């Protein structure tokens, strides 16, 4: 086994001999510089303006954070076929496990079909008198898409579940 430092040096020497070595080295250095946060161009400009050096959160990252905190998977049972031959009539069934008492009950079930021209399908409002949080319908699918079911609880928590439905013939109207 040779010394790793020596082997790296040898590799670099070999690179230097070749004509393309300069280009390759410059590429590596530029990549390293771009990865390292302290060498970013954006931070320099911020420092010049004497503004606060707080990294601005992008909307996407903040939304992802919110989703992770607020929306949890589980408790929602979503039933839909894996492959639907006719997109005009696709059965979709949603069931949420909840005691449905006055303190703890399901306020609302929302079903969304992503690839439809109107993605929001239905909002179902429940009361503690209804006894069960269960709902099923037949739906029109324009094309293959993901179905999402959200359950809003009385304490403000949101649970969700999703499923992909492959549609071989989308409905005529969509």
């Amino acid at each position, binding site marked *: 086994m040779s010394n790793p430092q020596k082997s790296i040096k040898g590799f670099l020497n070999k690179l230097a001999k070749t004509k393309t070595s300069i280009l390759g080295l410059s590429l590596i250095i530029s990549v390293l510089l771009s990865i390292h946060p302290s060498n970013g161009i954006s931070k320099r400009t911020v420092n010049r303006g004497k503004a606060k050096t707080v990294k601005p959160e992008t909307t996407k990252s903040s939304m992802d954070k919110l989703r992770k905190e607020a929306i949890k998977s589980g408790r929602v049972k979503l039933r839909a076929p894996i492959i639907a031959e006719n997109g005009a009539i696709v059965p979709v069934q949603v069931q949420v496990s909840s005691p449905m008492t006055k303190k703890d009950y399901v306020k609302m079930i929302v079903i969304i079909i992503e690839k439809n021209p*109107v993605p929001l399908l239905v909002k179902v409002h429940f009361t503690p*008198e209804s006894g069960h949080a269960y709902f099923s319908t037949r739906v029109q699918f324009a094309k293959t898409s993901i179905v999402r079911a959200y359950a809003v609880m009385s304490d403000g928590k949101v649970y969700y579940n999703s499923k992909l439905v492959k549609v071989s013939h989308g409905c005529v109207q969509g």
Partner: protein
Amino acid sequence: MKSLIVCFVVLMGLLTLPDKTRAIGESVIGIKPKKYKVGDSIRVRATIIYPQHTGFGKDKKGRILPTLFIKKVQVYYIDKVIISMELTPYLSQNPFIEFKVKVTKAGLFKIVWTDNHGRKFVKSIKIKPTR
């Protein structure tokens, strides 16, 4: 001669049978299971005859069909709204809904369908729990 008369009667009978096609706005409610007690949960299934025009579809001559769909459904159990729904045109033609309800006492069960023009279609069914 007799057979001819029989044939004639059968034909006339077939012609005068009631038309099974339902008019727009007619709704049906069904309850499963048929026998239940107080405290049981029942499945309520309801449909309404209605064309769900999304606004993107066209008729045979190529004209765009204007939107026409059921927008709101309210479920009453003994003069109190238990479940209410906001629907969009992407429910399938002749929309069908199903939900579960816990039986507390005998009374009237009413479903009110409202379309996007504000027209209302009401259908009710009696709930009689067996003792």
